[in-house]
């Protein structure tokens, strides 16, 4: 399991997130699985983890933000 996958699954195990977006608590997600999920929030989180890839540069943050914002805007939650 990669660091990104571990992070993704730990983020997705947050009880408040699960409750709010009615997520499946048992499912394991690879990054690819998550990106192809039908749950918009899971795709958003996977996109953030994959695209940001641990970078703390502000330009990268802006780029990822636009991408995730568009995804959320285009796929109403």
């Amino acid at each position, binding site marked *: 399991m990669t*660091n990104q996958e*571990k*992070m993704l699954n*730990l*983020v*997705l*195990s*947050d009880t*408040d*997130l699960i409750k*709010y*977006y009615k997520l499946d608590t048992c499912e394991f997600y690879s990054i690819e699985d998550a990106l192809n999920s039908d749950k*918009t*929030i899971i795709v*958003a*989180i996977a996109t*953030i*983890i994959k695209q*940001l890839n*641990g*970078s*703390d540069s*502000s330009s990268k*943050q802006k780029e*990822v*933000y636009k991408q*995730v*914002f568009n995804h*959320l*805007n285009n796929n*109403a*939650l």
Partner: protein
Amino acid sequence: MIIREVTIENFRCYYGKNSIDFNDGLTLVIGDNGDGKTTFFEALEWLFNTSTLSPELRLISQKKRAELAPSEIGTVKVGITFEHDGKKKVEKSFDFEIKNDEIITFNSKFIGFEEGDFDRLSSTGGGNILDRCFDAAIRKYSLFKGEKQLNVFNKPEAMNYLVRTFSNIRDFDPYLSFSEYACEETQKIYRKTIRLNDRNAVKERRISADIKASKRELHEKMKRLDAIMKEVGEYDSKINDYERNQAASETLNHLNSRIESLKNEQAKISIKIKEDYSTRLLDEEWILCGFPSILEEFDEKISNGNKVKRRIEQEERIKQGRQRAFDEISASIAKKVLPLPITIPDKDTMQELLDDEICKVCGRKAPKGSDAYNFMQRKIDELNRVEQPKEKEHKLEEIFANNFMKELDQVKMSLNFDKENLNQLNLRIEEDIHFNNKMRLEGVKIKENIVIAEEDKMKLLAQTDNLSEQELENLFHNMRNWYRFKVDGEKQIPMLKSEIEKIEKKLAGYNEEYDKLASNSSANIYAIINTAFNKIKNSFISAKNTNTQNFLKQLEEKSNEYLKKLNFEDFTGVIHIKENYSGGAEIRLYDNQGQRVHDPNTALETTMFMSVLFAISELTSIRRDNDYPLIFDAPTSSFSDAKEISFFNVIANVEKQCIIFTKSFLKADRKTGKNELDLDEIDKLNGKVYRIAKKRPFDSRDLSTIEMEISQIKN
């Protein structure tokens, strides 16, 4: 990273080229005090320091330096061959030569070789290879000198560092920073969109103001909570220090109090001692104490003087009487008439004859002025003169005209009175000197007690965790306040948390109200997106906290496994690793009843810290798919022989490369008195063993004759 070989050349006491091969498991390097164990360890530290190449003169072997011919070039070199994604080798070195009696260094190098191209230098250099394969983060948890460096959580930043480096999931911070940024951006867009609708604009402004005020309030409370948590953490850490050093702190306080009391007593005694004998000799007339014999002599002399005076006076009186009688008789003889005695006729008869102017002896008249009358007149004058003794004494007093004897008599009388005082003075002097001697003796005893107490204090401070006397005193004096501050702080934390919870609920209500503004409007989607980013942010925060807790839990479990192994058939207790309020972590030992073991013995404490190090190392090899060695210089100084040997045997069976420099397995030979290897015990050990020792003979006062030799004892 597995170390295969270390080569040391002309590095301090390692003259010439010296090599040691290492196993995957335990390698023991045994050496007595001063036999180069720490130097070997320092050679590795020098090699692993990739931040500098600067050559240091102190690193040059004195023997090589002494042997160096003019224009000859010497080299100091430390090299390591290891496996990490294939075989690699790095060497750090510099050359030196002597010019004009001064040693100069040059040609510093840090070169690297990699497998497949082993004969050619790596373009990245030795420092880069080391940083890649054995980075600074890991090196901090790999090399340990002595027992005191083993607590890796000693430094406040260690916890974050360990979690960041060795935990299951790394690099959360950029995602938290991103989430924060995304929330702010969507909030801005959402607000702008809401305000496009005039009906909502007023309401939006009011709710925005409420949200802003609540956020400000929340921020203040959070800030306060954070400060209190930090304070509580600091007091907790201070209390821990106190608890760890409680016995020492209390003993120091007792010792200081004893020393102070003894010094006060000493000061009182020194005030009581009046040894200003020279001053008292005159001021208090002590000088007179030797005078009684002189006074007696003085008395005697005065008595004698008086006697002499009286005798002289008597003699003078006789002499003068004789002279006068002689004169009178001589005058009579000269007149050829023998006069009658002066008393014939007597004075009354003579006066009658004069009054009657008749000599009643011959019956002739003797009128006034006649010869007969004048004769009678002279006779009576003579008689009167004889009868006047004062005139005679007056003549005698002229011999002692100054009256000195009388004055001396008076002095003698007054000195007779002082004799009594002098006897009392002698007694007083004797008492005073006796008292002073007694006090002085007591002073010496007190001084001895002060010296003993000071020595005890020095010993205590030498054994106490590198804390200064002031720090130990502070621990003692401030402990009660710290407990009070900590308890007060801990009381405030739940109250503040509850207040924060209320504000958060209030804020959530405002946010909900705010989101409702967007219902059935174009802003609705931004409300949804804003909520999504907030939820994502909170999930990342929660994941980061969970990751830390998981890491500590795993570390704790692994540490306890090692603790059991390292303390086989002995009391171990249970290691608890807790995150503290200031964001750091603490390693503590508890018994199975949940009671904290405040003052574990040094050997148990050492194994506790080593267990954590083994656990960190194991977690790292799981996380990073590579291993690194643990290198200890004299980690078991506090262990008993039996404990040490069983400890090494346990380590030999742990699947971990472990290199330990030690003076264990050396025992004094009864015949020679020299330390020899205990080969029987070494034979039982599962690991590679080397002996390092000074090559003999050598001159004990000449460093340039010192050279270490390394011999393999067990393969």
